[in-house]
């Protein structure tokens, strides 16, 4: 097989473009490729050479595989959403669970028999178009789920750190009362409070904004996901710093307290 011809046929065998996984090809789903009329109207050229009758089975199989992959992906996302360790807020968990298991999954699964029963390229292409454009499993549902989980996990961590602040304050006071120099600990505590506050601000509205995105909003909403990632990264950095502060406080109190505690216990025993 000549190289050029082989390269032309290789992709169709994969069926990638044939079944509309590429949006450009998917747009052609409405074209009837059983004719020899090209999108430009000229004749004598197959409108989409990637789904000819000879390649129909390969295209059909590729579409079926793509659907199976999406079912697997959605099931994985569903498992993440249901996992308690995701620390999703009840409302966010409910929204994601509904979108995944009541909209996306049944929608993709409904396309599976349709693809299996298709007998023409246009039918396969139409199903592939729906698979991509109606559900956007990889480009919307997936980042939407992951980003929401990250945002809620960060909110959970920020909440835990915030709840610890009175305890840390008490610990510093406790150390001071035991004769320790807590200057550094107090400074670290101030930074810890500021970092937690900054992280909380960065996360405000992120999950809600991400959850509001829909498959039909793509590619316009790609910028929303990028912006959310930036906010989440900033929040993560703040939370890391806050946790570092907490460790520094514990270390500071511990190191300075060791000598005092040791002399005290030596006397006591």
């Amino acid at each position, binding site marked *: 097989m000549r190289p050029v011809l082989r390269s032309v046929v290789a992709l169709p065998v994969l069926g990638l473009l044939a079944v509309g*996984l590429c949006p450009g090809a998917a747009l052609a789903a409405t074209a009837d490729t059983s004719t020899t009329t090209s999108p430009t109207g000229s004749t004598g050229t197959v409108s989409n050479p990637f789904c000819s009758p000879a390649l129909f089975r390969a295209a059909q199989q590729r579409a079926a595989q793509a659907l199976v992959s999406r079912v697997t992906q959605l099931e994985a996302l569903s498992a993440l959403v249901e996992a308690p360790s995701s620390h999703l807020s009840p409302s966010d968990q409910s929204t994601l669970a509904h979108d995944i298991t009541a909209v996306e999954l049944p929608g993709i699964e409904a396309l599976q028999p349709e693809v299996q029963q298709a007998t023409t390229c246009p039918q396969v292409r139409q199903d592939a178009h729906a698979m991509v454009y109606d559900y956007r499993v990889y480009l919307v549902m997936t980042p939407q789920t992951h980003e929401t989980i990250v945002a809620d996990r960060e909110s959970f961590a920020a909440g835990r750190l915030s709840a610890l602040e009175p*305890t840390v304050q008490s*610990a510093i006071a406790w150390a001071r009362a035991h004769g320790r120099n807590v200057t550094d600990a107090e400074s670290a505590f101030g930074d810890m409070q500021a970092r937690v506050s900054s992280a909380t601000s960065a996360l405000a509205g992120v999950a809600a904004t991400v959850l509001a995105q829909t498959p039909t909003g793509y590619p316009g909403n790609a910028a929303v996901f990028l912006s959310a990632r930036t906010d989440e990264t900033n929040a993560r950095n703040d939370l890391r710093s806050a946790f570092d502060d907490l460790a520094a406080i514990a270390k500071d*109190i*511990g190191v300075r307290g060791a000598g005092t505690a040791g002399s005290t216990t030596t006397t006591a025993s």
Partner: protein
Amino acid sequence: MTASHDEGGAMAHRVRRTASVASMALVAGLLAACGTTPAAARHVVRPPTTAAYPAQGAAPSSTDPLESPAAQQAVADVQSSLGAVDSGLAQVDTDLSRPQADS
């Protein structure tokens, strides 16, 4: 010094050592999460808990508040959450770098 006093002192010493090791492990874990080397962490000693002074009958209020089970649980929660956030953000990076053709 009586024999029973020596015995009590030895027991208190053992208890203090156990408490000290446990406290060091706590802080070592805390610092490890922040990138501090274990070697550095070994030099850190937490203030003793009331368990270190059973013979004195120290009141719980004299315990370092950060030693409380609730505080330790909160620290562990934050630590595990931050680890999960890191892996979650890595996953998001993968999601957002996915080619459009693979939609």
